[in-house]
């Protein structure tokens, strides 16, 4: 056990910090063009697809290096690159499951953001029970015909391509009839509609596919392997964001401390209030414990091991922490924490929220409710932990015993 960074990692971090300082956009990113320009700069510097094979434009870097770059980005409050689904999910899926032709065709354009990607997994009736999805891909001989509805598609509005899960066989058990495809979003059969969230913004879309066409060459893996492919997909990003997420939390904590220094209560700065101090201390401990855990995860990844179901612990831990953190922030900030307009500067968040959007405390608070729902709700994570890590017996369930609920 040695939790010091190696001299190489320290040097690498310093180099990344310097690069970011010198290249960070001077003005706020407002348009997609601005973001694409920043994306390309990152790409040219070798800071995207760092872990991908070099032959397809990646950097062949170690997990720690990827984590360090993400962390330095967070530290500098740098804007995120675009094409996050392409970088985080689609690319790694193609790297592992794609054919050589597919790798050559798509990977580099993901990195360069020449083609933007989205993910087409969830459906209105297939959320926690993703395997219940109904979107169909019917083999027409030379292509597939796709019909169905997807939801919670982030970047759907700007995506050129999507990574799709669809049912190709309705006769087998529900996990087994699912296949994985690439989907050209720029075709008449694909209708993308923005989905507004309780935050008031629309990071997500609904995607309606009506007789959309999918070429045979778009198929990833074998037919019926879609479920397995989707399972390996989850957790690709586990290490990459590990440190950055905590650095984001730490910045938010800092802002909270600053706000508590500005406010006064009983004739003293609020930061001297023992109750506020307890809260700040408690949540700082929780944030730091996440950091320690991130180092544990990185240790595994550096050794070439995959955390497997341990990823469920990580996701459960940080998403529940984020809810507690934001509740606590709003306790300290009072109604200031709820403002979307008219907040005095000292009570604004002014740093990137977890989703990489520059936002208000109110936005961060509302957004924190989503973390325990998306990408496997806390309930699903606890099921996975119970069954796969602790070896507890599976529950009796209608879809297992064949009974009707």
């Amino acid at each position, binding site marked *: 056990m040695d939790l010091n960074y190696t001299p190489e990692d320290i040097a690498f971090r310093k180099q990344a910090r310097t690069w970011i300082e010198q290249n960070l956009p001077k003005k706020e990113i407002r348009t997609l063009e601005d973001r694409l320009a920043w994306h390309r700069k990152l790409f040219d510097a070798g800071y995207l697809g760092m872990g991908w094979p070099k032959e397809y434009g990646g950097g062949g870097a170690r997990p720690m290096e990827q984590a360090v770059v993400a962390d330095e980005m967070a530290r500098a409050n740098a804007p995120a690159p675009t094409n996050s689904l392409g970088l985080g999910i689609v690319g790694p899926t193609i790297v592992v499951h794609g054919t050589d032709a597919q790798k050559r065709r798509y990977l580099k354009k993901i990195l360069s953001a020449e083609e933007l990607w989205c993910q087409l997994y969830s459906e209105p009736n297939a*959320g926690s029970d993703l395997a219940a999805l109904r979107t169909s891909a019917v083999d027409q001989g030379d292509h597939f015909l796709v019909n169905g509805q997807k939801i919670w598609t982030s970047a759907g509005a700007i995506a050129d391509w999507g990574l799709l899960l669809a049912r190709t066989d309705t006769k087998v058990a529900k996990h087994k009839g699912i296949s994985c495809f690439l989907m050209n979003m720029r075709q008449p059969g694909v209708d993308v509609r923005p989905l507004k969230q309780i935050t008031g913004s629309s990071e997500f879309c609904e995607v309606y596919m009506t007789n959309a066409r999918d070429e045979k060459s778009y198929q990833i893996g074998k037919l019926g392997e879609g479920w397995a492919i989707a399972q390996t997909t989850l957790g690709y990003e586990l290490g990459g964001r590990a440190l950055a997420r905590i650095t984001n939390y730490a910045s938010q904590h800092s802002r909270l401390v600053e706000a508590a220094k500005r406010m006064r209560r009983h004739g003293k700065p609020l930061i001297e209030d023992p109750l506020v101090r307890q809260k700040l201390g408690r949540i700082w401990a929780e944030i730091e414990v996440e950091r320690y855990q991130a180092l544990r995860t990185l240790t595994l990844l550096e050794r070439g091991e995959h955390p497997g179901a341990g990823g469920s612990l990580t996701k459960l831990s940080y998403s529940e922490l984020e809810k507690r953190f934001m509740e606590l922030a709003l306790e300290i900030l009072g*109604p200031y924490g*709820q403002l979307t307009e008219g907040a005095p500067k000292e009570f604004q968040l002014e740093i990137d929220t977890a989703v990489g959007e520059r936002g208000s405390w109110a936005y961060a608070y509302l957004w924190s409710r989503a973390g325990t*729902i998306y990408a496997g709700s806390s309930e699903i994570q606890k099921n996975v932990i119970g069954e796969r890590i602790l070896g507890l017996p599976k529950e009796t369930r209608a879809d297992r015993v064949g009974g009707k609920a």
Partner: protein
Amino acid sequence: MNFSFSDDQILLKNSVRAALDEQCKPEHVRAMFDDPKGYSAELWGEMAKLGWLGLPFPEEQGGAGLGLVELALLLEEMGRAAYPGPFFTTVVLGGLGLMLGGSAAQKDKWLSAFASGKARATAALLEEHLDWDPAATAATAPKAGSGWTLSGLKRFVPWAHTADVVLVPARSPEGLSLFLVDPKSPGVTLTPMVGIDLGSRWSEMRLDKVAVGVDAILGRPGAAGPVVEALLRRAAVMSSAEMLGAARRCLDMSVEYAKVREQFGQPIGSYQAIRHRCAEMLLEAENAHAAVYYAAWALTAGAEDAAVAASICKSYVNEAARKVCGDAIQVHGGIGFTWEYDLHLYMKRAKGLEPLYGDTEYHRELITRHVTSSR
């Protein structure tokens, strides 16, 4: 000893529910989000006709002469409907404030105007540092002739932009005093502060040497502390009632959803994770109910423990509503996170009220003060 509603109270509750189900549907709430004023004058007129706007006022001032239990029933229903408008500010902050400290003339003038729907009110109880203790008031009111001139910065003044009169605490030479201020007076600047609950409107209110006359003072100069405290207690309990209603709506929606939404071949309500969560939500809603109506009764009856009951109420309901509304989103999953689905209307109403009229810690401190001093 009878902790159940009378037939009249049940009748009132049902009639309020029916009226709001009809006239304050989610579509109405959403429409008001985009309305410049933020509330419907038509519905306001209707509420005047139904007697809601004067519910707790004496009959001689056009009121119905009912108590705080009845007002809590009404406000619970408003929370349940996420009613957007200055009802709370007018009837509770303005109306009860005037009842607590107003002169006969002030009451005659304002209460009947509120009851008839002709005027609206609010109170400016928070300043920059969010201290609910009236003693922390920083706004000043030096003497100017027979009156005073008010200066200071008030924040989070609810529905100030629709108010005809604002109760403003400020330090006059006599001590803490409470003034009736016309927000259209010279020297008053209102700036919108927009929170997550778009059905509640807030303003920042700057007072720059706002001149008020001798008839603008509520109660005796320098004696406003106890009045503000008493008003705060009532506002705490009444806002708790509204939060309770919002939380109930979240609970009801969750239970209904858990019955029909299927995952893994069965309704999600059949899973212990969901069913037990709903049971906990019900427990919190029931306990919150007891806290609200006990406190409302105690304030009306002048019970010995009325003040501590008010603090118990707000501190308890703050946490109960947070749990119930937060859990409701979790039970719903993704759909509860969409703008289109109505759940967030109620969740945000409850969240918006949580820090107001004393946050949880403010009231817990008061509880301990009461308990340790009475022994």
